[in-house]
């Protein structure tokens, strides 16, 4: 695939390296150190850092400001942007704001429903959906035009990503929906956390067969389990999450004080296994409020040191 933006993530992927990204959730406050500290923990072990956009609809420092903090440190942020909270004016405006700081990666999402968060009584926007946000960024970048048709002076140079969840229902549209996102113009995909390896491999196989892995870089999403309690919570409470019984059992059979280490070990094993999957372009390691474990996972999985590109 041809390089279209100054994004470091794109260059690494285009060079054929297995890319590694991670994510940081901004703080529920205005202290910039909170995000800087998290980023410092992982910066040498990942190629880019996603900054979540009010994930699970809990109000937090905005993704854009946190991305700017990272950019000021010379790091490579991925601006996550949900269509839940902004109409097309705000989305385009924030994209330009990010572009003004040369933030070169964006992840287009619809966002968790607001009923999960601290403003359950609030409105949601959903003026456009995640698919249409992909189209919007591509239009702004490639045609240099706003949705309204006017010309953009200094268009954004963003590598456009989106999420995919191979585990949600109905399964039969999961590959077609990926194809649809690619048709909309997505260039990289970070998947939902994978625990059901067989199902993920099946989905990747189908995507590969359809030639989709040639059209977008697909990165496998991984979240290490901290405890059996977390595994049970993910299994039973988090919508669209597929945690097989054997994952829960393996942690349950591990003494409590060793469960965290076992969770890390399982994550590393997953990466080793997934390296063999045809068409897979990299890993997105989401260690939720556990960023300090990312370097160890990356090293154990043989993904360190990270490649240098210019």
């Amino acid at each position, binding site marked *: 695939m041809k390089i279209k933006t100054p994004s470091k993530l794109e260059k690494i992927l285009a060079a054929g390296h297995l890319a590694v990204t991670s994510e940081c959730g901004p703080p529920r406050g205005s202290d910039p150190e909170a995000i800087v500290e998290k980023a410092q923990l992982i910066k040498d072990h990942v190629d880019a850092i996603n900054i979540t956009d009010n994930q699970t609809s809990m109000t937090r420092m905005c993704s854009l400001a946190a991305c700017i903090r990272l950019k000021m440190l010379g790091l490579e942020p991925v601006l996550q942007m949900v*269509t*839940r909270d902004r109409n*097309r004016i705000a989305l385009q405006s924030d994209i330009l704001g990010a572009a003004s700081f040369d933030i070169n990666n964006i992840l287009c999402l*619809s*966002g*968790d*429903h607001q*009923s*999960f968060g601290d403003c359950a009584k609030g409105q*949601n926007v*959903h*003026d*456009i*959906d*995640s*698919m*249409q946000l992909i*189209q*919007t960024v591509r239009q702004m970048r490639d045609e240099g035009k706003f*949705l309204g048709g006017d010309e953009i002076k200094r268009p954004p140079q963003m590598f456009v990503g989106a*999420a*995919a*969840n191979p*585990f*949600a*229902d*109905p399964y*039969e*549209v999961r590959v*077609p*929906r990926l*194809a*649809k996102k690619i*048709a*909309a113009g997505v260039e990289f995909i970070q998947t*939902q956390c994978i625990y059901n390896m067989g199902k993920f491999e099946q989905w990747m196989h189908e995507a590969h067969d359809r030639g989709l892995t040639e059209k977008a870089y697909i990165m496998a999403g991984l979240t290490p389990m901290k405890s059996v309690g977390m595994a049970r919570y993910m299994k039973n409470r988090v*919508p*669209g999450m597929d945690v097989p019984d054997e994952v829960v059992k393996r942690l349950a059979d591990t003494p409590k004080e060793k469960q965290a280490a076992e969770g890390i070990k399982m994550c590393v094993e997953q990466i080793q296994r997934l390296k063999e999957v045809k068409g897979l372009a990299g890993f997105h390691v989401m260690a939720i409020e556990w960023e300090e474990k990312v370097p160890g996972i990356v090293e154990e999985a043989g993904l360190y040191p990270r490649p240098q590109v210019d």
Partner: protein
Amino acid sequence: MIVADKKPIDEIIGQIKDYKNILILGCNECVTVCEAGGKKEVGVLASTLRMHAAKEGNDIKIDEKTLERQCDPEYVEEIRDSVDQYDCIVSLACGVGVQFTAETYHGTPVYPGVNTCFMGATEKRGLWVERCQGCGQCILATTGGICPVARCAKRLFNGPCGGSTTGKCEISKETDCAWQLIVDRMKSLNTMDEFEKLSPIKDWSTDRAGGPRKVVREDVQQ
């Protein structure tokens, strides 16, 4: 139809506490069908308010009337001769009826006796469900006859989000995933190849977003 639900009695009591002569005004259309504001509900509310007033030692007079519709001028006019007897009206019509009555009788306070909820259908008695949000540009032709605007919590136009689980929406196990329904229906209509067509960015100017709306039909105007 327009589906409404009863307002808590406390709230209605609070609204009318300063009035002596009150008209409870029902509507014989949608709110009758959804059992929130028809003749029977007018009777029960009037009875409840009279008993409450008697218990509190308040001397009030409550009359009951149910109009054929409160959203058409000729029916709302039917109370013209008697409206001055009342200090206020509690309308059990939908929000449209409440406003039409209020606009017609400027000098009389009109209070809503129901919460107007949505445009929906009777799935079974006692269970009314939303089906339409009146966005002004119907897209049902492309979504298998099931509306993602009204029935998807994120009104997605291009397929189910990652929260769809065993046919249910991420917001609640009681809520069907609209896109699961659309996919099921497309499959039975053999139109699944339509699924991968990208839905264009919607023009919301015909929706609430465009400001108060009108349908003007000069061909039928007099």
